[in-house]
């Protein structure tokens, strides 16, 4: 699973009050307000990965999930957003705020690796949060400098049971991340199984809306890539694993015939993780799903 997807799940999970994973931010009534939003601020555009908001604290954390690279211009735009908190208010209808007149937001960068010594971050007062974790070995979430919010300042750093693994389903995959390809395949098959059990046909749009809750928000360019990947996977299943059990509907582009037999055929073949692993490898040998 890609670092980007892991981090988005990490942030969302911190705001879910569930046993087995830290609910350090849920304790202060932070909730996941937005994922992959797009906002215009002073003629510029920012695309925060996650926004968590605490109504009682009249405060939002705007998180940008990074892997290795840092972009100076992106940081400038986030700083611009920080000085224009009304932009977030206007864009996300923060109903839970107790008093919107004293609303504040803080931006922060996060990563699985330590980027805190990078010149760009050293020279700013933007908080950098590191999720030091692997999905099976627990999490230490530490920050480079304190948050301005006293509530958040007391919440970090977060130490968690080293036996815990990170929840991963709040944001199951990103079609642009090669490391998410198994989850992409698995999620499309899940949608296909559902269609096979409850109706006779499905089409590519239905599958996409089912598997990706951001479908209506992602850019046209990304939608096109997503369509291509999904069509390719369905064609692969038709040729290989589901030969005779899934067919294009004649004269109906993008429409597929499925049935209870399709589900049974999948059931007969999908024993163990090797099934998805093999399909993910065969449909996506390149460096990125998007480049297929």
């Amino acid at each position, binding site marked *: *699973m890609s670092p980007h997807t892991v981090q988005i799940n990490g942030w*969302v999970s911190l705001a*879910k*009050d*569930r*046993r*087995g994973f830290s609910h350090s931010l849920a304790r202060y009534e932070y909730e*996941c*307000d*937005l*994922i*992959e*939003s*797009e*906002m215009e601020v002073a003629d510029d555009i920012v695309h925060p990965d996650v*926004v968590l908001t605490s109504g009682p604290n009249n405060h939002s954390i705007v998180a940008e999930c990074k892997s290795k690279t840092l972009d100076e211009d992106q940081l400038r735009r986030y700083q611009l957003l920080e000085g224009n908190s009304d932009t977030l208010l206007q*864009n*996300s*209808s923060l109903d839970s705020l107790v008093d919107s007149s004293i609303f504040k937001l803080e931006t922060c960068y996060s990563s699985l690796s330590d980027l805190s010594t990078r010149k760009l971050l050293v020279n700013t007062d933007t908080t950098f949060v590191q999720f030091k974790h*692997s*999905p*099976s070995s627990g999490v230490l979430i530490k920050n480079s400098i304190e948050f301005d919010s006293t509530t958040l300042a007391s919440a970090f750093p977060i130490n968690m049971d080293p036996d815990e*693994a990170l*929840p*991963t*389903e*709040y944001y*199951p995959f990103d079609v642009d991340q090669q490391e998410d390809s*198994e*989850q992409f*395949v*698995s*999620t499309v*098959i*899940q*949608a296909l*199984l*559902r269609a096979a*059990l*409850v109706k006779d046909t499905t089409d590519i749009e239905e599958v996409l809306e089912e598997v990706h*809750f*951001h479908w*209506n*928000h992602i850019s046209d360019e990304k939608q096109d890539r997503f369509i291509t990947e999904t069509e390719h996977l369905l064609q692969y299943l038709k040729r290989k694993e589901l030969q005779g059990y899934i067919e294009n509907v004649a004269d109906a582009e993008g429409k597929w015939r499925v049935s*209870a037999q399709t*589900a049974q055929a*999948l*059931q007969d073949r*999908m*024993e*163990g*993780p090797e*099934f*998805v*692993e093999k399909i993910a490898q065969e449909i996506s040998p390149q460096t990125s799903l998007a480049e297929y």
Partner: protein
Amino acid sequence: MSAEINSRRGMLEFFQARLVGTQKNLAEEQKLDDDQKMVKTYIIESNIEVSEFLEQTDEVKDVRQIGDELHVLEIKYRGEEGQYYLDSSDNRFWSLYTLSGSQFARRTFEKLTTTDGNGLDHPWIPNDTQREVIGWGQFKGAGLKKLGDDAFPPEYVNEQVGIGDFRLNLNGDDTQQIYSMFKQNTDIEKILSLSRIKIRREKGDEYITERITSDGAFTARGGSDIELHLDTVEKVKDRYRELINLIEENHLLSYDEVDHGTRVNGSHLRIDLENQIDDIEEFISHVVSGGKPFRLMGTTTKLKDEYYKMKGVDLHNGDKITLEVGPTWIRVYLYEGACGNTALRLFTNLQQHYDPAATMDIENV
């Protein structure tokens, strides 16, 4: 006899006569000539309309409506025939009454509630809730059985928790002490599951003795007032409905589209296990085999050593379900519109067949 029954009142009078007759036979002869005299009620969890059920169910050979949301059904299944009364006044949890023999009635109930895609299921009552029901009356018995059965291969469960074939039927006042001993002994509770309970409830001068199974089957084994039987069924329905509602209110993931992004609502359920899973891949393969009792099907991916994910569907209704599985915990993700019964089926079957000490963390329970 059935042709004379044309109303809810008539049905209840008929049941009342049978209930008192059953009690008389039990009191005088300490046995019943045949168990057809016992009034049995089965709870059916429904996601469809009654009309749809009556149209689509081949086993229903004849239907006669005798009241608002009350039908008399002639059911034929595997060569046997019997009369049933379907009360759908609660559109989510129907009651199916019968005086048919227990084996035929049980087979019919299972057929109706375990047919893939027919929109019907039965309750899956967790151990804690069964113990709560025991508290509503006097303890009169319980059934404790070994794990595994049809859910896992016997050799797999024996390897995991180490017990051979074992079944314990406790029946009578003096068995409460034995039950308490089992209940208090954590090690025993890890390997024996509570499959049924028997209680006596009293209200004023009236009483009822009930046998209640973990899948929502009630047998009135003597008593003085049929209303107390119906009251027990309703109380169990209410408790179960509460669990379902809490799951559906708090634990279905939904995504609201807002102007500039997406909001995430709801959170996962978490099951904690006492019996550690040694081979997670094999464990998942049994859970998602597509067969009874789990009725789940899906693909598995390995996220890390000892951390797997299953994305699949519930064959009962086609709802999506995702599991994340570690050695001692399972996260359950359900999605908008899903039925909470899916999670309770998984949880209760894990208690019944793998780990009676398993707990599920439901918000606000």
